[in-house]
């Protein structure tokens, strides 16, 4: 099964886990307590998020702490930003084309 950041964000529970953990590492039990779904279900979501590279698990004593690595989400962000940049530059080019054209005609008069 393909694991990527797009799959990670496609599930509402995973999105909640991501926002819960952003900048606030927690251990597995603490995360599970905040959801109505079963602990194995949460473990599965955490595993998927780990496979997507959005969460890393670090052992501290007997507890396993989950940290987010939101760098991966940049992929999603950059992807739409690329289009935004592309269209902005195209509209700038359209403006240059039209106003340059206008200038030419004015100078002929």
């Amino acid at each position, binding site marked *: 099964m393909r694991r990527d950041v797009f*799959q990670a964000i496609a599930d509402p529970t995973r999105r909640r886990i991501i*926002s819960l953990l952003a900048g606030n590492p927690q251990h597995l039990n603490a995360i599970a307590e905040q959801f109505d779904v079963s602990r194995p279900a949460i473990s599965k979501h955490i595993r998927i998020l780990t496979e997507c590279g959005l969460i890393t698990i670090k052992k501290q004593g007997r507890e396993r702490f989950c940290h987010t690595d939101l760098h991966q989400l940049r992929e999603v962000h950059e992807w*739409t930003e690329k289009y935004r940049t592309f269209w902005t530059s195209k509209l700038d080019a359209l*403006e240059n*084309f039209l*106003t340059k054209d206008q200038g030419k005609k004015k100078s002929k008069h």
Partner: protein
Amino acid sequence: MDSQPIIIEKTINAPIEKVWTAITNRDEMKQWYFDLKEFKAEPGFEFSFTGGTETKTYLHHCKVMEVIPGKKISYTWRYEGEPGDTLVSFELTPDGNKTVVKLTHSGFETFTSGNPDLDKKNFVQGWNEIIGTSLKNYFEGKK
């Protein structure tokens, strides 16, 4: 429900008729947009062109969907060999002697249609949340 589109508005200091010609006439489009073999502002007209970044170019395939002469044109926008079919539209509104150009690019959720693991509705919701709020706050707050 669609994923959040990209919408860009720009006021251009040119009358609406001139802007319309610039976005629908092949010879004018060539000078600021893409060099197309042929272009017709007619629903159903299909065109292809190569474009992209300096490092990688993509063959684009487009089909005109809607035309309101002098006001609006929209066409599909997809890439050769890639899933997904997005929609690009240009809408013109006069503002005195100037023209407001509204560019909308929507349908980004369709780029993942090749992945059967994704539930579309949920993906779109996640996409909007991530793109529209959390990521925006996260990255812009960090800067």
